């Protein structure tokens, strides 16, 4: 088979994920976009099992499984965080998260 197809699919999915992360204002949508990125990674890992002479054949699949679990854990915690934020601020818009509200008051 032509592995380039799933690879390119993975690349495009990753790019879509990046786009989504950057485009979306709603934290949950951002999380979805992140899921797309992680899935793209998984796809590439699984595809790599086909295309590469691995030291341990099938490592990609194993890796992908780990990534899935990682992603699940992250989503769980992430949603808890977003919900906490929502509880406190009544919004889930990431634009509202300021990084530096520091007024410049530096002496000398």
């Amino acid at each position, binding site marked *: 088979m032509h592995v380039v197809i799933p690879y390119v699919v993975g690349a495009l999915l990753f790019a879509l994920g*990046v786009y989504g*992360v*950057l485009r979306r*204002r709603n934290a949950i949508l951002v999380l979805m976009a992140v899921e797309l990125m992680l899935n793209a990674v998984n796809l590439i890992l699984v595809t790599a099992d086909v295309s590469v002479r691995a030291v341990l054949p099938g490592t990609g699949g194993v890796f992908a499984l780990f990534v899935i679990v990682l992603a699940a854990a992250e989503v769980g915690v992430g949603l808890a965080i977003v919900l906490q934020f929502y509880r406190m601020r009544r919004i889930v818009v*990431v*634009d*509202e*998260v*300021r*990084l*530096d*509200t*520091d007024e*410049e008051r530096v002496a000398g």
Partner: protein
Amino acid sequence: MSVDVAGPLLPLVPFLAGLIGLLLPPGDGGPTRRRLAAGLGVTGAGIALLLALRVLLDPNERSTDPFFDPYGPGYSLGTFGDLTVGYGTFIDAPAAYVAVAVAVVALCVQVYSIAYLHDDPRYAPYAAQVSLFTGAMLLVVCSNDLIMMLIGWEVMGACSYLLIGHDRRLPEAPAAAVKAFLVTRVGDVGFLLGIAVLISDAGSTYLDTVLAHDYSTGTLTAALLLLLAGVAGKSAQFPLHTWLPDAMAGPTPISALIHAATMVAAGVYVVFRTYPLFEQSPVALAVLGVMAAITILLGALSATAQDDLKRVLAWSTVSQIGYMTGALAVGSPAAALFHLLTHAAFKALLFLAAGAVIHAFGTNYLSRMGGLRAHMPVTFWSFVIGLGALAGLPPLSGFWSKENVLAAAAHATEGGEPVPVWAGWVVWLAALLSVGITAWYATRLLLRAFFGVSRAHGPAGPDWEIGFDDARYQRPATPHDPPALMFLPLLVLCVPAALLGLAAYAPGFRTALELEDPHLGVAVALPMVLLVLGAGSAWWIWRAVPGVDPAAALGRARPLFASGFRLDDVQHRLVVVPVRALARLVAAADVRVVDGAVMGTGTTTTGLGRLLAAGHRVALPVAAIAVCAGALVLGLVAWLGAAA
């Protein structure tokens, strides 16, 4: 005490006396403390005189103990590379004579000052500084190491600075002091460089080695010309003479000290000392000759128009030192030294006598004097002897020494000397002409100060110049001869001023100085004629229009002469103003450019920081965009890197 102990001790004693004296508390400590200070000063000078006499007694005695050999390299003070600076003495007869002269003048000045500064609260440091000054001069005289000589040389400069600036009530005193130090210091730049060249080439600072070293002509000429710069500074030769007239702001005894035997004589003495080198360099001698000729005339002409008693004497010093350097230039160091000695005597006498006048009268200005002869006979006669010697009136000392100089110059015009013939002519003409001028201004001085009627109560009433430190005159007292402490030194100095010239007939003295036999040939007539002409014309002008300054006859040249040919202005324009401008420029550049770059770096960095910090004052998504963009760019970089 043997010479090998006396020699090294000679500069040390007054030096130590000075140091100890400086430790005395300043301020008016009452009579006890004054007595202590005076005692120290007089003792220092007195012991120095004794030591000098001891050395003079047997100047050529050599010790067999190499360690104590006063004429050897001496005690090492420090070694720089292969150059060992040593404290040792080199005393031959001329040195011994000069040392005696220095000691005598110093002693006279010390004694004289006790009375002259009787109510000065800062007498103690003054006396100590005089001692230091004496020690420094004796070091120059005795040292056999060029660096040690330089030390004495510059310490004198510093002492002159301190002493000239001594007077607290004269607004011009500090300026004059600074000027004296700075101008001589400028000359010393050359002196230091000259010495540096000499010792670098010779590989030793030891005078004997340097004198014996075979230099290339170029090096030697350069070094000697540099040395001459220093000599010009210290000995007040054109063009570095400008400090000397201003230095009259110092107390009068100090003027005596500076003009008679120390400071100004040092330059002449150093050339004398290094004469074996000068002999090898006609260029240096020619320069010296021209310098001398200009100085002789410049000094003499400037002296004619001065109204300040001390300034007349100051300019006369410039002129007389010119005679000495002229003698050196024309190849007669002996004549120079002879004139140095006689000049030391009569100039010290003149200044101390002038001090007596000022002390008694409260002013420096000839225009406020007149008719002093009746009140101050001793002072008057001191003046007569001093001025006579200055003008070269036979048989006073100045006549003989000046005659020697003229003879030497005349000899040089015949060729056969290292100096070029034209330089001999220049020196001879200047010296000769100056004899007449000197006689003129000496006569004028005498007449204006001591004859005629007193001008103390002028049309505008009493108008007292406070010209020296201890003058606290409410109203003019009747002028009178000075107290004994000032009186005695005058008497002491009268003797050599009058008689030292006859010493040329003393074989010991003559051979010691390597003077030629005195011969009063026809050649003596010419200066005599000029002398009579000068003195006579001054007298004649004075007689013709009584009460008017003979200098009025100078007409439009008078202000020019009075200002010393405006060389002060020239110096101001050419040196002071540019240096100040340069300083302003450099200081501004230091702040704006050099420090500006530094501060600019700081400001720029902080500004960048502010900019970047502002860039980080954003919301999360922008940060996310930045992160992803950064990752993308870095990924591309890596790709290109891996592909390359």
